[in-house]
């Protein structure tokens, strides 16, 4: 992990006692990297993430599927970069200093880079705060594992495996 912002450990939180009511309970949780898209907060489980990179040169690939920005060179490995905004049907946006590419590990060897607006922090989200999305199975929500209401944030948890299921 190349992130400098580490979430406070469970012990720290308990000892500090400065946490609000919601964080007082800390059951089994999922540690997530939180990032924003269009001012909404999203999370991807840390165990799926290899690293977070600043946006360098992205080599465009003509004729690629819609949503694929191109490829980047991650220490000798060619990694596809997709624009999370396009996948979630949001208007695309200029890449700026805050933009980051989150390198996600799919099954086995496969990796993919997801371009996001801004990476916030790493946070443990208690499992019981996560509401799974059932019912609606349209394209965009298929990528969503659940929604967590946690510490004043509404965090949308992304199911990266499902997101790239069946693509090759």
């Amino acid at each position, binding site marked *: 992990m190349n992130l400098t912002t580490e979430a406070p450990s469970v012990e720290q939180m308990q000892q500090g006692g400065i946490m609000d009511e919601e964080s007082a309970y800390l059951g089994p949780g999922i540690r997530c990297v939180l990032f924003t898209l269009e001012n909404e907060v999203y999370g991807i489980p840390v165990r799926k993430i290899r690293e977070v990179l600043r946006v360098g040169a992205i080599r465009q*690939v003509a*004729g*690629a599927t819609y949503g694929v920005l191109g*490829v980047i*060179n991650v220490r*000798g*490995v*060619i990694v596809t970069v997709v624009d999370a905004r396009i996948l979630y049907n949001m208007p695309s946006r200029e890449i700026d200093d805050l933009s980051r590419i989150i390198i996600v590990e799919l099954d086995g060897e496969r990796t993919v880079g997801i371009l996001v607006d801004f990476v916030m922090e790493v946070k443990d989200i208690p499992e019981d705060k996560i509401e799974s999305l059932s019912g609606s199975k349209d394209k965009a929500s298929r990528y969503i594992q659940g929604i967590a209401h946690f510490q004043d944030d509404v965090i949308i948890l992304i199911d990266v495996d499902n997101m*790239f299921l069946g693509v*090759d």
Partner: protein
Amino acid sequence: MDEEILQDFLVEASDLVDQLNEQLVDLENSPTDSDLLNAVFRGFHTIKGGAGFLAITPLIEVCHRAENVFDKIRNGDVEYDAAVADVILRAFDVISDSIEQLNDGARELPENDPLLLNELDALTKGQVVEGAVKESLSTEKTNEPILELPEGVDPDGEISDEEFEALLNQRDGKMASRSEDTPALTLPEGVDPDGDMSDEEFEALLEQRDTLKAASPSADSTPSTLTLPEGVDPDGDMSDEEFEALLQQRDALKSSPPPAVKETEPDVEKTPPPVVSKPAKKTAPANKSTKPAAKNTPESTVRVDTKRLDEIMNLVGELVLVRNRLLTLRGKESSREDISNAVANLDHVTTDLQASVLKTRMQPVKKVFGRFPRVVRDLARKLGKDINLELEGEETDLDKNLVEALADPLVHLVRNSVDHGVEMPDVRAAAGKPKVGTVLLAAKQEGDHILLSITDDGKGMDPDVLRQKAVEKGMMDEVAASQLDDQSAFELILSAGFSTADQISDISGRGVGMDVVKSMITKLNGSIEIHSVLGEGTQINIKVPLTLAILPTLMVGFDEDSYAIPLTSVQEIFDFNPEQTNKIDGQVMVRLREESIPLYFLNEWLAPNNPKESYKGDKVVIVSVGNQRAGLVVSQVNGQEEVVIKPLGVMLKNATGYAGATITGNGSIALILDLPGVVSRFQ
């Protein structure tokens, strides 16, 4: 089952299976070659040994019987002819399938087909069972002890277990008395000869036997065989009950592991009492259908000579030294000379390292060729043709991926040669050719390419027939067809939907057409060429690059973006001149030495967002795509570069037009163009 031991076994067994595959066919051509016989025997024995350790019973059963047969063969008791070979090869297929299934993750093997086991057992007696009753029991060797039925027993009646037991005992007695001239094995003291025997004891006895045999080769083991009771009509039908009884007896004898070997009976384990050669029809193969569909999983491991690894280690050591040198140079004011020396050194080391690492990926083409003797043999036998397959240059090294990728196209081409190329023996004789046809499969390295050729001395192809066919199929009009030179006419067979065979046989019509072969070869950046002389034969040449990992390319580009074109396809480069072009049917063509070549403006596809006003100063790169030529218009030609092919990532694997990507000298990414894909994008 210990997974680690199993994996070791599978690696070894797979190698042995490959070897056996070849040896078994060789053996048919020289059935008396004792080195070969011993090698085959050892092969089966080793597989059996490993399987025994892992208790893979079905595998042991088959290997064991095959081993027995070969023991007989090498002792000269049984002759390895085509009929025997058929059974042995079937047994071999079972073994090879079993290994494959285990490799695919299966841990339980299906029961063996009892018919096959019976046939193998019969072989040890010198009998061939081929479906129906073919051999009669009267072909029994005369030097075998004749057993007599006890008085009062109706020879035509059913045989009871007791009676059979009595016969067996009788046989044992006779065998014992006959075995005076055979070297006797002695049990270690204190071992109860009638008690169960441990594996170690058995192994010891086997070794003892082998040494005895080696010492006195003439004293070969006496075949211990069962004969039918006298009075039973050997040609007559046997009742199911009788057969069943015999089977049971045999199984009882065989299935008591460890086998009860008597000191005076040197060969019980090697030659178990064979079963009578009259299988009831109802024992038809039961588990043939359980054979899983052949999966084409590429091998995930490579065997590398430790010498090569040492070499690499050594070079890596050098690399570290160079790095250290560069690191120290970085710290201080260093002269240009020092740096350039260090860089030159780095250049050397990496070049060598690259070559060494590539070598670890190289495998002899023998790995593909090894399967062909069997393919040709089976096919020739099925078609009733006499074909001699010659292999040349089997030791040629080839990239591992190529070895795997070439297997299918080659099988198809060889089958074609056998099926369509070589004529039936009588036709050949009438044409004044030797009855035995020859198919030559050769490989050799030519520079940075491997040339594979399949040559047959069959009937060849008639270019006129091919031209006519092309017209019939509506592929071209008569004028165009008549203008095709012979070479191009032959290459017509590589087009999709072009089949000259009026009947598709189940041999060559296996769903893979020549067009598929061609596209597979093209995918490997290879080319295919056909030469044929009517009445004399056909030669198909395949040229593929030595490795798939490193590709010499021509770098071209538009502004910042660079693309790599495989250099093997590049024929020439010249300046784009609008005056040399004309439009035919909406397609821009360029005239080049009396030939019209379609021009494709790559920027239309690769940079659709900034259309160009003028192509002045652009270059045309003429490339060959299959049998056609095309001109690619690019902004710049940046020169030649050897690139390491890297796969494109997720969601881009299937993007047409790209063969992969690579990282260029300045660290940026260049996309490698896949020319057939590029052309298809423009058509």
